[in-house]
């Protein structure tokens, strides 16, 4: 991030090296100048103002910061922003189109899959990656795929129902939508 510093006297200001990166986020191409130590999650939240991706812990456990990078669900708190150079990022803000919610968003509402909402963006993105690879998951498949995302409010049962609701809706939609595709490497889905 480019920061303006107050001139607070005779401090050693030094050079703070930054790196120029280019990436796509939710389909939009962006460039940024970042310190190497900036975490991807902070680039998304502070640099881009997309605060739907949340920070929940400091040991890479909770998954509240989950985003998709080239279609793979990863913890954005454990990736450096500079590593996003040349890649595609999807956050919760990229789920809905201008006119429609994503079936996962609808499913979470239909099945009461959220209470405080803090873990929800991460859950939906991990679920999105699951459904791209496996459009007809069992309950066990869903619980396994979400086992890197912690929730404190719901007890998970309704989250599972929400994902299965979305899966059913996606399967019933006409072919050609972005979600349906060959089961396999989700990295092939953008």
């Amino acid at each position, binding site marked *: *991030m480019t*920061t303006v*510093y*107050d001139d*607070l006297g005779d*401090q*050693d200001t*030094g050079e703070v090296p930054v790196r120029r990166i280019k990436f796509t986020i939710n389909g939009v191409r962006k460039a940024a100048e970042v*310190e190497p*130590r900036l975490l991807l999650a902070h680039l998304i*939240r502070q640099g881009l*103002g*997309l*605060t*739907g991706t*949340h*920070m*929940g*812990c*400091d*040991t890479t*456990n*909770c998954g*509240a910061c989950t985003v998709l990078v080239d279609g793979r669900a990863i913890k954005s708190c454990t990736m450096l922003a500079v590593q996003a150079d040349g890649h595609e990022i999807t*956050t*919760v*803000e990229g*789920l*809905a189109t201008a006119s429609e919610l994503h079936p996962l*968003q609808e499913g*979470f*509402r*239909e099945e*009461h899959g*959220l*209470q*405080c*909402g*803090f*873990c*929800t*963006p991460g859950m*939906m993105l991990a679920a999105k990656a699951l459904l791209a690879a496996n459009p007809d998951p069992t309950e066990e498949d*869903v*619980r*396994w795929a*979400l*086992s*890197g*995302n*912690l*929730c*404190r*409010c*719901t*007890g*998970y*049962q*309704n*989250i599972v129902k929400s994902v299965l609701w979305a899966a059913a809706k996606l399967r019933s939609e006409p072919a050609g939508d972005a979600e349906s595709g060959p089961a396999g490497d989700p990295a092939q889905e953008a």
Partner: protein
Amino acid sequence: MTAVDEIKIGGLGASRKRVEDQRFIRGKGNYTDDIVLPGMLHMEILRSPLAHARIVSIDTSRAWQIPGVHLVLTGEMMATRNLAWMPTLSYDTQAVLATDKVRFQGQEVACVIADDPYIAKDACEAIDVEYEPLPPIVNPEQALADGAPVIRDDKEGQDSNVIYNWEVGDAAGTERAFAEADTISRLRLHYPRSHPSPIECCGSIADFNRATSKLTVYMTTQAPHIIRAAVALVAELPEHMIRIISPDIGGGFGNKVPVYPGYVCSILASILLERPVKWIEDKTGNLISTGFARDIYLDGELALRNDGKILGVRMHVDSDHGAFFSDAQPSKFKIGLLHSAFACYNIPAGRITARGTYTNKAPGGVAYRCSFRVTEAMFFQERMIQAAAQDLGMDQAAFRRINLVSDDQFPFRTPFGFLTDSGQYGKCLDVGLRAVGYEDFRKQQAEAKARGRLLGLGISTMTEPLGAGNSREYDILGIKMFDSADLKVHMTGKAILRTGAKTQGQGHETTWAQIVAHELGIPAEDVVVEEGDTDTAPFGMGTYASRSTPVAGAAVAMVSRKIRAKARKLAAHLLEVSEEDVEWELGRFYVRSAPDRGVTIQECAMAAYSNMPDGMEPGLENTAYYDPPNLTWPFAVYIVTVEVDPETGVWDVLNMVAVDDCGVRINPMIVEGQIMGGLTEAYAMANMQFITFDAEGNCVGSNYMDYLLPTAWETPGYELHSEVVTPSPHHPIGAKGIGECAAVGGPAAFVNAVMDAIADTGVRNIDMPLLPDRVWEAITKRHDVSGAPPVRSDD
């Protein structure tokens, strides 16, 4: 014209989809860390690595040199402004930044305010603190031992580590009961330290505006009005110039009630720098320093007659409060409502003694869906009931039936002075036993045992006191525990409702509107609900202890009725009849003698602005403050079946049945969500989740690598039952509250199930969490397994 359909308009009993979801599913929630103010700076806290040590020196000179650092605060600097210490909600004092000593690992020692949190962290690392270690105390036994160092040597007259001694009940009557007993069943255990750990950590953005002299603080708080009062007290700012705004909260569970040093530092920093200062703690800070839960030792006895009747109960509890006594709880009761234990049983005599001690650990004790220590009360209760039934050789369900309060005994006075007013305990137990297939399970259990497999079943039954509470008995820091609702109906019949509660995921924006719909026939979607801004919300004591539906929800009903009373006058005026001739059905008033002649509530609203009767004040709005006449008493039966692997100590849940009678359910979908969340926390505490300490006072469980929350993979599924509904006789809509029931009653069900599976070993207790190594040790060595700190080690 007819009444509107209550379910269609989203009234009581409608599983209305949530209003809140619209922003959360889009990632458009407004949590504290999402808020950005112009010129905002960032604060990080430097914490003590030691549990107990004298501070020899603090050198911040290198920190000040780092570019981007605006301010470095130490306890010494705070002390010049009388802010190094602050009062707690329990009439004690707590260090804001340490001055003389550090008293727990993780205690706040200094803080840095800088352009961004990365720089603030760099500067924290550049602060040099010299410590002189002192012997650490990690449990009450050490705290009370001869020669133990006095932790609170800052307090005049404090010459030990005892905080309080307290007792309740009938000592003489209980002695007699025990003298008459055929059998005395004794159980000792430790309810380990746990932590609410919502996913979102605590934080604040303090914004002092010199031009207006107004301080605005955005913060993660479940009780914004309490905070406003506390800030006025601590910072000596006038109350009307303080605005606390609690935006969206990512889970509270009691963690976001206390006043934390970070809030106070961010406020002072903003006043000094005249810029907004944001402080967001990290998970380690949250786990190691904020309000923990439980950490209390039980020595309990039941006096029994051989036919199964309980004659009396005696409990002594030792509560480990950490370094400062900072619980948020009704001030009359040192251990909260722990004496609500055994309220669902017909026991004639009881006595509880309680002692609180200081230790070198983070302060707290009342938190985590505990209903003011009722989690402890009901865990102790059901563990003692389990042991007693075993001691008598009686069936667990039969033993409970003999002793449960029967339907015709209400209102029932418990031996500790509570008045329970309603319930159908026996029926709930029937439903639960039928659902789990009790008889069949016992058969399967016996057959499995013959083949070397260990199956177990655990029951937990309890009623708990929610909705604290009536002003005669309940207050926090002298402020009575009423709550409030303010309803303004606009001329087109839409409305805005504000309450003194503060939702953190419970869905108030959805459910309060349903109460208005029920009372006024205005569709729920026409009512917008706001909470959390002390400038606009009526005064309330916030949301915790499952008090919102019982108290704030009641206020919503009462204010709606005030509105309806005025609307009735408007209706009479519009219908040109006298008020006595006007009848009400949902959504409309009509003439009794000519039912087709009526006006809708919306028409009354319009009339309030355009066609008032002579002498009537215009407008259609009102406020209600509700002082609950009594606590509400939901009842629950939780039954768990498990299989234990004797070779590894690992146990799996086979089945989990929950029967909850919480009176009238405003939104069944939301009620079920609350139950499942609570059951998961119960499972977590029973299976894997705890904070402990080693002999040096190091905190084990201060991050998510060691403090384990279950994932979707481990968490069992739940079968929920809602057949039994016993409305509260005094609550305006008959609701009792539900938010914490499952966390209160659930843990004992899981533990009792495992204990049942290994009953043949004769082991009476394994402390939670029932980790595989503990279960294995119990099975193999046939002795009780304690989990109390300090952690065992090779040394």
